[in-house]
């Protein structure tokens, strides 16, 4: 009887020619079926038609103009169709010609800062909105199947993150960075959006982790947003997700303690949402150092022993390597200078210096880090690539004039940037040591590049990325040497992705409001 019910439930999918979730387990070649291309988060492609010897002849295959805001999504490519987004918009575009198949639009209130793309399950697409709804679309037509409110956008919740499809579940993150609200992760049914499990990024009184907060009130408003898609290990059945900064952002004084599980990497059972382990990248963060950066899974040697590894280049300037089965810390290496950490605790987590928290009269702060710009790991070069920056600023704490136990507002302080520079780093995955680097020219105190870009590495020995000056480039992944570059009229705003279609390899880059596809010239 139960089997029959399952069959009936599955009936609506039977005629579909969409995306079998099993495709998510394979390296992406003739598809790019998820935000990172596969569950490892490494954004490496085994395609090599475009390679070191011929990339110099790379040419534009087509361009698609959206006439909308910057594209921060990574396109999916399934069955010859690309699917990509900006807030309130989804496009389906012919991956060979760049011609539009359909365009979905929905007006909403809420936060329009960015949209990282759709998720696909069989013949349906899933799209998060600025007013924190989840929309299900028919991938064939772009017609809406359902629309579900996930959280209350009047409190500042919004969905920029792409859901992660794991088996028959959508794992949903959530953004919130303007008021003191807690973050969470949820699993929902692709069929109707029904909630399957819910995990709170901050504990309730009495739960493990609650001892790292002063009281129930600070905990209930503690932050920990989950705004970048996580990774998944099908053998361990664990999902790995980064959490954001605690709230109020700079006012550490009003929330003494480590503030678990903010600024953390957490491993959750994909079926139950139960936490298997956590690693806190920034205990008691007071500088908005979200640990949301992409989590990269590597099956590789560590000190001569094959291990299931997890790596993150974090927003706090540390490159972390963990054993992803246990959460054991294997390496915490600084990839840039800083003045706020007093070293590592026994768990391998940085120890923040109390006197480098923002103070009322100002604290001189030096830091390094990265952000949502996707990193990449190439198993060929064994290098972990990340766009990073180094900066100095003065940080001021501001408290409520009437009650100094409270922050002045959601930020609880002010930062004045003095100097910053950005760079592309190639880190030895095992030691975190910089094997090569490209420092962007610093000029006028702040370099020209306010914005970093995502990275793609390939079996062609290439690394594709962009910089804040609008240079789009293909580099030798082993050395960092430029093999191809041009100015496409704006900055690379989404991470590059690649696919093979009808025997031809394409690299797709989002540059402001335009999607470009690049390929070798046709003979």
């Amino acid at each position, binding site marked *: 009887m139960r089997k029959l019910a399952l069959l009936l439930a599955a009936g609506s999918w039977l005629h579909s020619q969409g995306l079998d979730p099993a495709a998510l387990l394979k390296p992406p070649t003739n598809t790019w079926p998820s935000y990172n291309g596969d569950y490892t988060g490494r954004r490496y492609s085994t395609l090599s038609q475009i390679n070191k010897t011929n990339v110099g002849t790379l040419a534009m295959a087509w361009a698609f103009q959206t006439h909308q805001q910057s594209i921060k999504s990574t396109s999916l490519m399934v069955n010859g169709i690309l699917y990509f987004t900006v807030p309130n918009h989804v496009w389906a575009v012919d991956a060979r010609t760049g011609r539009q198949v359909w365009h979905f639009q929905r007006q909403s209130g809420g936060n329009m800062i960015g949209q990282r793309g759709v998720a696909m399950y069989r013949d349906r697409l899933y799209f998060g909105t600025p007013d924190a709804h989840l929309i299900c679309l028919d991938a064939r037509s772009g017609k809406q199947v359902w629309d579900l409110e996930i959280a209350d956008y009047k409190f500042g919740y919004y969905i920029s993150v792409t859901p992660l499809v794991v088996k028959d579940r959508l794992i949903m993150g959530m953004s919130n960075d303007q008021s003191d609200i807690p973050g969470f992760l949820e699993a929902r049914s692709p069929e109707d959006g029904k909630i399957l499990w819910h995990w709170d990024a901050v504990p309730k009184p009495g739960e493990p982790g609650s001892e790292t907060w002063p009281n129930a009130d600070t905990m209930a408003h503690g932050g920990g947003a989950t705004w970048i898609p996580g990774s998944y290990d099908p053998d361990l059945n664990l999902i790995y997700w980064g959490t954001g900064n605690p709230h109020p952002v700079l006012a550490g004084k009003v929330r003494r303690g480590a503030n678990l599980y903010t600024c953390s990497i957490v491993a959750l059972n994909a079926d139950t949402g139960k936490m298997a382990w956590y690693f806190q990248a920034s205990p008691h963060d007071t500088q908005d150092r979200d640990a949301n950066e992409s989590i990269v899974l590597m099956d590789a040697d560590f000190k001569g022993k094959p291990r299931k590894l997890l790596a993150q280049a974090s927003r706090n300037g540390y490159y972390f390597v963990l054993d992803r089965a246990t959460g054991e810390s294997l390496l915490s290496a600084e990839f840039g200078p800083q003045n706020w950490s007093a070293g590592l605790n026994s768990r391998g987590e940085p120890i923040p210096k109390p006197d480098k928290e923002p103070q009322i009269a100002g604290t001189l702060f030096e830091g390094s880090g990265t952000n949502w710009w996707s990193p990449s790991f190439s198993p060929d070069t064994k290098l972990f690539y990340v766009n990073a920056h180094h900066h100095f600023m003065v940080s*001021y704490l501001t408290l409520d004039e009437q009650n100094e136990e409270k922050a002045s507002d959601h930020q609880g302080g002010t930062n004045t940037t003095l100097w910053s520079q950005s760079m592309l780093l190639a880190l030895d995955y095992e030691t975190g040591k910089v094997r090569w680097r490209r420092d962007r020219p610093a000029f*006028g105190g702040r370099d020209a590049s306010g914005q970093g870009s995502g990275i793609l590495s390939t079996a062609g020995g290439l690394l594709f990325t962009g910089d804040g000056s609008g240079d789009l480039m293909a580099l030798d992944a082993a050395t960092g040497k430029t093999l191809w570059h041009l100015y496409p009229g704006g900055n690379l705003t989404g991470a590059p992705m690649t696919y093979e279609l009808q025997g031809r390899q394409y690299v797709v880059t989002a540059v402001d409001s335009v999607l470009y596809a690049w390929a070798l010239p046709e003979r």
Partner: protein
Amino acid sequence: MLVTALGVWAQGRPQAPPDPAIERGRAQFGQSCGFCHGPNANGGTHGPSLIRSAVVRHDENGNLIGPVIRDGRPDLGMPPVPLSPNQVSDIVAFVKSRVAAADIRSANRPVQGSGDKLLTGNSAAGKAFFEGAGGCAGCHSPTGDLAGISRKYPAAILQARFLYPQQRRRIVTVTEAGGKQYSGELLALTDYDVSIQDAGGWYRSWPLDSIKLEMKDSLAAHFNLLTKYTDTDMHNMLAYLESLK
């Protein structure tokens, strides 16, 4: 994090005039509501924060807040507050302004509150740093370029400026392969190209791999100090510069 507000406030952004409804609402709220909800509406000893209230956040023109003020919340111990529709409307404007002020997405903004809070340093120690360890006196003079500096900038801006002035112009020299030289203001420098405005006011650009670029960093001394200052040094320096009236 990478975007600074300095450029904006150095130009002295004019303050928007206060909204009279919000100001009336602030006074009325203080009288009628502040005792429980706090004068800033962010919670007091008896009443919850209204910044975190779903009623407030979903309110449209008083449609949700109005009935609560009029009828009270007897179940939660809040009495009805007899106010005129105009008074209610002013309170709504004030509470909404508090929500907007609290919901701030970026910490990159002008320093909040009085500049006096920044003046915790010791002026004499700042002078000693200026003349000694800081090496500032090599380029700057309290009776020369820094005379009256404290009158020119608010404390927070002065603090950022002495740490690392935002450079407006940077003069570079480009030498072409044939030996021909151009000097001018640097306009852009990327991984691959450089562009300048030459002495005649004309735009010129070159691929970096075809020329020699000479660029003097006149702020190198400021940069080197950034890694040497303690916070106390920084506060003392501000106190000293603030004394240069």
